[in-house]
Structure formats: C-alpha cells, structure tokens
C-alpha cells in the first residue's frame, strides 16, 4: 500500500515543543548575529513598494508611506527581510519535499464550507493581516514573537491582542473551521 504509506508520512510533523526549541534557538542566534529578530511582513511591504514604484514612480514618490522607503541609493528589495523571506520559501520547500507534502495546488478547507468560501475568507484574512501588520510595525514573527523575546512593550501587546482578539471572535467564525 504505497499510497497509504505516503499518506501516513505526509501527516507527520515534528513535535511542537521540539519545533519551538529550534525556532527559539534560531531567533536567539539571529538576534546574537544581527541585533534584530525574525520577520515576514517586511518583505510584503518591500514587494508592494517596489511594484508601485515600478508601475507608477511619480505616485510612489508622492505618497508619504512609500517615499519613507524609497531613496535613490537604497533599493527597497535590497533589504535583509527580503533575502530572509526568499530563504523561508526555500526552507519550506525542503521540509515539504522531505515529508512528501508538496502536491499540486489544492484548497484546504473545513468540510462545512466550500473551497470558494475558503478562498474568499483567506483573501479577506490576508487583507486584514496586511493592514494590521503595518499598524503593528510587524506581524506575528517580527512584532509578536521577536518583539516579546526582546522585551519590547509593543511586541508583548501585539502578542496579547492578536491572540486575545482571536479567541474573542473565534466563536462567530467557527463555521469556517469546525
């Protein structure tokens, strides 16, 4: 039963506490080397800034938020978090490959909702997270995890709010998941 075997293997994730220790050591090493923590939303911002600058440079320069990150000698894609994020894709690919989880594109959703509903809410969640990560000056990685580990008040508050609000509203969106 080869398919059965592959199915079993694809369900295997590492122990969460082991994953946590590895992630914590990586975060510690990152701070020790670079003086800053890990991040993910920074690369999204760089991508949007670069895209808008390429398509409508005059608009980008005029807009206060973009021009914060645009200058002649400093390209927004030439940024630490962009290289780190390219690494995230590569690392996830290796892990997925070894575990046999890389398959053709599919939609993961609760049996109670359609794939279409899932995609709509996934997009909507992304928009909320995109806007939220700009207000938060970082997302779960940069603000909540790295921020809390480095004792930043903003990081600790982001951690409490993100999960706190999540638990508060979870009941109203339970159909999406259970």
């Amino acid at each position, binding site marked *: 039963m080869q398919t059965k075997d592959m199915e079993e293997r694809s369900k295997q*994730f590492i122990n*969460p506490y082991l*994953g*946590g220790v590895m*992630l*914590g050591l*990586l975060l*510690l090493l990152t*701070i020790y*080397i*670079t*003086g800053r923590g890990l991040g993910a939303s920074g690369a999204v911002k760089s991508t949007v800034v670069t895209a808008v600058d390429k398509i409508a440079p005059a608009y980008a320069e005029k*807009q206060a938020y973009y021009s914060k990150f645009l200058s002649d000698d400093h390209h927004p894609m030439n940024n*630490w978090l962009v*290289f*780190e*994020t*390219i*690494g*995230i*894709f*590569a*690392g*996830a690919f*290796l892990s*997925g490959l070894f575990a046999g989880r*890389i*398959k053709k594109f*599919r939609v*993961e*959703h609760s049996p109670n909702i359609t*794939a279409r509903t*899932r*995609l709509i809410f*996934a997009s909507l*969640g*992304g928009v*909320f997270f*995109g806007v939220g*990560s700009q*207000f938060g000056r*970082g*997302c*779960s*990685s940069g603000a909540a995890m790295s921020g809390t*580990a*480095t*004792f*930043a008040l903003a*990081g600790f*508050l982001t951690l*409490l*709010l993100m999960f706190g*609000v*999540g638990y508060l509203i979870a009941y109203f*969106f*339970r159909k*999406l*998941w*259970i």
Partner: protein
Amino acid sequence: MGPLITQGIINPEWNFVIALVIGIAFGYILEASGFSSSRKIAGVFYGYDFTVLRVFMTAVVVAMVGLVYFNYMGWIDLSLIFILPTFMKSVIVGGVLMGFGFVLGGYCPGTSFTGIVIGKLDALFFTGGLLIGVFIFSSIFPWIEAIYYGGEMGAVTVTEALGISRGLFTFLFVIASLLAFIFTSLIQSKQKKTDL
C-alpha cells in the same frame, strides 16, 4: 560579544548571505511544525490543535531566557539590540486587525509563504490579500497617519512599563507558558479528534 553585525565583528557584506541561511532554517521549522496548514493553525482558537501555542510560546521562552543568560554571561549587549518602538494607538489597532486576519484567514504572513510552497491555494490567496492590504494601508496613509504615529512612547520595554526586573518578567512569562501548555493539553484531551 554580540550582536556581531551591529558591532562590526562580522562584515556587513555577509548580511544577505546570513539572511538567506536564517530564512531557510526559519521556513524549514515553520513547515516541519505543520504551519503550512491553515486548519492546524486555526485549531488553536477552537481547541482541537494547540500546535501554534506550543511552538510559539516555546520559541519565545527559549529566546527570552537565552537573551537574559547571554546578557548575564556578557556575551551580548542587550542595549544594542533593536527594540520595536511602541506607538500605543497603532499597536492596538494593528493587534486587533491581525487577530481578525488570523481567524478569518488561518494564516499569518510567514506561515502563508510555507503554505504556498507545498501547494495550498488558500495560502496563495491569503498572501494576495496581504499585498492588497499593504497597498490599501499605503493609499489611505494620509488619513490614518495620526493613528500610525499616535501614542508614541519610543523604544520602551515591557519591564520598564511594568516597573519590574527583566529576570522577574522572564520568570513570570515562563510560568505562564508552562501553565498554558498544561491547561491546553487538558482541553485537547477532552476534545473529539478533528480530522484534518
């Protein structure tokens, strides 16, 4: 003594190579922990899977205790590391929006990247939403600038805000995390198994 790049011990030319290697390890750990699955992540809010809480809190505890230890041994100068500045209004708005994003989308930015790689279309749509969200934020920036810069407190730490020592805060954080691990294990053992 760390941080190495900040103090010029490692040549900044290596910065991007280091970023790439760290990113690879980050992506590997996220995917191997199961964060390429939105239903596994969302389980933390419904009590059928607490992987997010376990991985996240363990990582913060390890890094936090490590930093305190490194500082005590004189291996790192904590006054040189980046402290995320606090803008009280902006943090509150951001945290609330990200809470909604988490429950609606089932991903956060980093985890959605790992989902895309193994072929989750919903992860791709989430990342598309992220790009749109950042674009919306930038487009309406003049109207929300007052919130973004509102309640500025500078690079304040939680220990300064609470008026307790770094050691005590770390101790309390570790105790709270251990209690959360025990408590959530009890909840999960009472839940019927949700087949992902």
